[in-house]
């Protein structure tokens, strides 16, 4: 029973992390319909940026956080400007391939600089954050990820539903020319969505780093984990990303805990195929309305 509850807690917190990192992904997809394969690398960049500031430069933690977010905001902007903008109007697969190329570039560069080793952040979370019930212990990093996840979730839900920029982003995703004709600054919307996505990535990268340590391979493989998460929830739904993340997290830890670890790695994909056969747009994705 205790094993079960411990798995449940682990699964939930991992799921929450997946959900959090899926947010940035959904962000880019919602505004520009780009499937970002460089997602895991963006996570890693955020995490390492924080690492340099916190461990090597010894900047105060709050400032580290602020600087990382700022840096990643700028980075997202630059990525969009340099790489994505020339491809506006090209076919979907070419844009996908571009992000694949970017992923390889970033990963190679980071491995070149940092190597494949594990790094640890200096611990800074207050121990009071951790929760203990009897034998079950929830470490403070998990609690922090939960709080940060909820916060960003609310923020983005609000952003897309009520703020003008959020509505413009969805409008651009639906019909670019129509958005242009109404004076939506489409290029700015793209740039903004990449910038915000990079920030979200940085946040989830840092939280992941606090939980498991920082490693290029680990973090960039999370980028592929994000796919079943977002597809399960529906590519353009934020609430769906959360539910998807939690389902995948639970599935993974339970199969890993009760059957075998390597099966735990593929079980999300097997479930994914079946869910897609039944609900082609995921559990919460908006149905594509097609007319010839």
């Amino acid at each position: 029973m205790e094993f079960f509850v411990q798995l449940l807690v682990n699964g939930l917190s991992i799921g929450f992390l997946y959900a959090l990192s899926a947010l940035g992904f959904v962000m880019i997809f919602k505004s520009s319909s780009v499937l970002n394969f460089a997602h895991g690398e963006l996570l890693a960049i955020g995490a390492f940026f924080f690492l340099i500031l916190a461990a090597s430069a010894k900047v105060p933690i709050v400032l580290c956080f602020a600087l990382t977010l700022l840096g990643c905001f700028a980075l997202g902007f630059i990525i969009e400007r340099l790489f994505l903008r020339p491809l506006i109007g090209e076919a979907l697969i070419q844009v996908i391939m571009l992000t694949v190329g970017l992923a390889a570039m970033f990963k190679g560069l980071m491995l070149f600089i940092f190597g494949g080793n594990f790094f640890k952040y200096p611990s800074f979370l207050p121990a009071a954050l951790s929760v203990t019930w009897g034998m079950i212990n929830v470490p403070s990093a998990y609690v922090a990820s939960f709080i940060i996840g909820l916060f960003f979730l609310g923020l983005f839900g609000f952003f897309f539903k009520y703020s003008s920029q959020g509505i413009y982003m969805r409008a651009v995703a639906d019909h670019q020319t129509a958005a242009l004709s109404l004076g939506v600054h489409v290029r700015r919307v793209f740039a903004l969505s990449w910038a915000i996505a990079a920030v979200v990535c940085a946040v989830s990268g840092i939280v992941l780093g606090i939980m498991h340590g920082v490693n290029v391979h680990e973090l960039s493989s999370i980028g592929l984990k994000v796919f079943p998460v977002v597809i399960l929830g529906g590519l353009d739904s934020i609430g769906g990303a959360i539910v998807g993340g939690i389902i995948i997290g639970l599935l993974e830890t339970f199969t890993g805990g009760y059957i075998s670890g390597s099966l735990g790695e593929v079980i999300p994909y097997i479930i994914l195929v079946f869910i897609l056969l039944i609900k082609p747009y995921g559990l919460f994705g908006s149905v594509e309305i097609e007319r010839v």
Partner: protein
Amino acid sequence: MRKLKFRPCGNFKERYEQDIAIFETDFGRVWVWVGLVLLLSSVPFIAGSYTLYIINSIGIAAIAAIGLNILIGYTGQISLGHAAFFGVGAYAAAILATKMGFPFWLSVLAAGGIAALVGMIFGIPSVRLKHLYLCIATLAGQFIIEYVLMNWEGLTNGPAGIILPRATLFGLDISGDQSFFWVVFVCLALMCWMAVNLIRSRYGRAFIAIRDNDLAAEGMGIPIFRYKLLSFGISSFYAGFAGGLWAYYTTSITPEPFTIFLSIQYIAMIIIGGLASIPGSVFGAIFIIILNETLSRITEYIMNTGILSGIALTVAPLREFVFGLAIVLFLIFEPRGLAEVWRVVRSSFRLWPFSY
């Protein structure tokens, strides 16, 4: 003897047959034959064994890339699981050869057939899935097959892999680089010929119709699900066939190479080569394989020279970086790929000195 055709200076096609002809001029047809004969008769004697190894890898990759191009470039169904189907083919050939004692030609063909079947199974989600969702479903296929190859020890021997018998054809030993060259390139030529003719048949036209607008295609009476499955099947057949050849060529296989990274390399091949272009797939395979080999040679060289031995390990990732950079630059500067570059170069020769 009929008159040789030369390229007219305008569009004078009067019949549909002229429009779908593979060679616009007899000159082109002659050139292809001459090129093929030259390739088959000279290269294996000139090239050293390392060069031959690269050329053979290119040939095998090109077969798989043509298959992927049929699926992505012509039918518009993005697949991220091509390496898995390639792996299925390799394993199928290995298992058939070792456990059932199939001869080379039969096990390679059967490898194609089995991969086609597996490909069609993973193509089933395409009934209801489109674009990105399908892309992810095939990604799932990639991971599932990878898992099966790694963990079904009874059949695949797990991480230890399988060692194949030497390949023989009509009683001749063909496992050497030189003799395998002929096998690979005759197969490649046949596969190209099949693909080119497939595309101009009703099946090919149905594929293209589905790519351009599947709802409209359905409205025109094309049973799109059947054609999508067919496209998955054909594409995986190519992959499986190439996988079978590759298994015989390397003589021992493990599940390691058939990862998502290989799938991505195949997509890179057809994008850099040119989507919806058969010669493009070949160009792409040439480009990617040579890029890979050059990069690993360079990193090897840097590692071996004593100067940089201290940071030797950290130079290797630069290979991945350059690979990514090549893809990015290609997409930004020539999104239609090498096939387009080739066309431009050719037509500027043809039209010189007046460029129109």
